[in-house]
Each structure stands twice: as C-alpha cells, then as structure tokens.
C-alpha cells in the first residue's frame, strides 16, 4: 500500500512501497527512519530526501560524482549502492555546499549516513566550484 504524505514543501505525495528507503539508524539530528527520494524538474540538480514520518522534513541531496570529479568514498560502498551528499542551500549559488564527509549510502531500500575517511572529504565543499571554474575557463577562451 502506498504511503501518502502531505509535504509542507511539495504538497501531497504518494510513495510506493518499493520507493521507500529505511535508515535503520536514522540521520544524525533527526528522528525519522523512513524516507523517499522526491525529484522535481525545477531543481533537478538535486533530489529531495523526504521523510515519510515528518511532512516538514526534507533535505536536498545530490550525486557527488556529478559535482566533484575527484569524489572518493572510503571505506568503499557496495557496488550497486547509490551515493548522495546532503546539500546546504543558500541564496547564492556560490554559497551552496555539499557534505562530502558524511555521505548517504543507499542500497536495496536501506540507507545509512556513513563517515567518509577519504582524504579531502570536506564537511562543506562548494557545490558549484567546478562548474564555476569551467564557466570561467570557457570565458577566458572566448576573450
């Protein structure tokens, strides 16, 4: 049976059982254990990890490999796991950061927030730094 949530951000959402992600140990700082991923066209760079237990709890998360070409996770996760990092949003794109130190590893409907022991895994890594650098590079070439 699908779970229905009345999200404070996105309105009513129906979540199929197979889309449910259980974090047996939760996320640090929150009581919720059951989540799902909500994708929206407007901000497709992220998906929202939305609680099924708290309609007001949702965190933007992103695939770190999309933003950080050198991203590494140690200890290595299972091969079939999806990896996300939480995103600290801001009014300005250059102030967005991602938490590479504590990624979310999701496999077979089970999620875990793990500690990343890889070198350089920052707690607040500028999310759009590589994008900005690439844009600046192409402007330089154009000039």
């Amino acid at each position: 049976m699908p779970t229905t949530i009345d999200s404070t951000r996105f309105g009513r959402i129906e979540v199929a059982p197979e889309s449910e992600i259980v974090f047996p140990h939760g996320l640090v700082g929150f009581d919720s254990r059951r989540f799902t991923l909500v994708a929206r066209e407007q901000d497709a760079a992220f998906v929202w990890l939305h609680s099924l237990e708290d309609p007001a709890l949702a965190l933007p998360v992103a695939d770190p490999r999309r933003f950080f070409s050198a991203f590494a996770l140690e200890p290595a996760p299972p091969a079939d796991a999806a990896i996300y990092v939480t995103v600290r949003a801001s009014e300005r794109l250059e102030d967005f950061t991602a938490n590479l130190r504590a990624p979310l590893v999701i496999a077979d409907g089970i999620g875990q927030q793990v500690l990343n022991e890889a070198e350089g895994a920052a707690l607040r890594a500028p999310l759009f730094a590589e994008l900005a650098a690439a844009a600046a590079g192409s402007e330089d070439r154009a000039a």
Partner: protein
Amino acid sequence: MLIITRRPGEKIVLGDDIVVTVMEISGQTARIGIAAPQDLPVYREEIWESVKAENQAAAAADPDKLPPLPPQQS
C-alpha cells in the same frame, strides 16, 4: 552517567555485540578501540555534532527560495 575505571588493555562490553577497549593511555590522551557491528554508526562527538549541524542546515532549504540552478552537468 555510569563511571568505570579501566586500565590499558581492559574492556567494557555494551550489550551483546559492542566491546570498548582502552588501548593505551599517554598523558592527556587515551586510545580507545571499539568493536561494533559494521552498520552501527560510531562518531567522534565533535564530528557527530558537525554532521548534525550540516543535516539540519540542509533540511532548512526552501525550494521556493532557491536561486536558479545551472543546467545539469552531464
């Protein structure tokens, strides 16, 4: 809080599957070994606090107030 005195090499057992060992004490520093199930999160407290702060900051995001996002990278 339960307070227990231990010497280097001595252990504390929590439940059935967590063992905390005092490995070494040197001046102000204690080296602690923790054997726990792999899926049990073990954090240094200051890291736990900082992860909590990042999680809570992430959860404060308002989708209606996000700036226009750059096109997705391939």
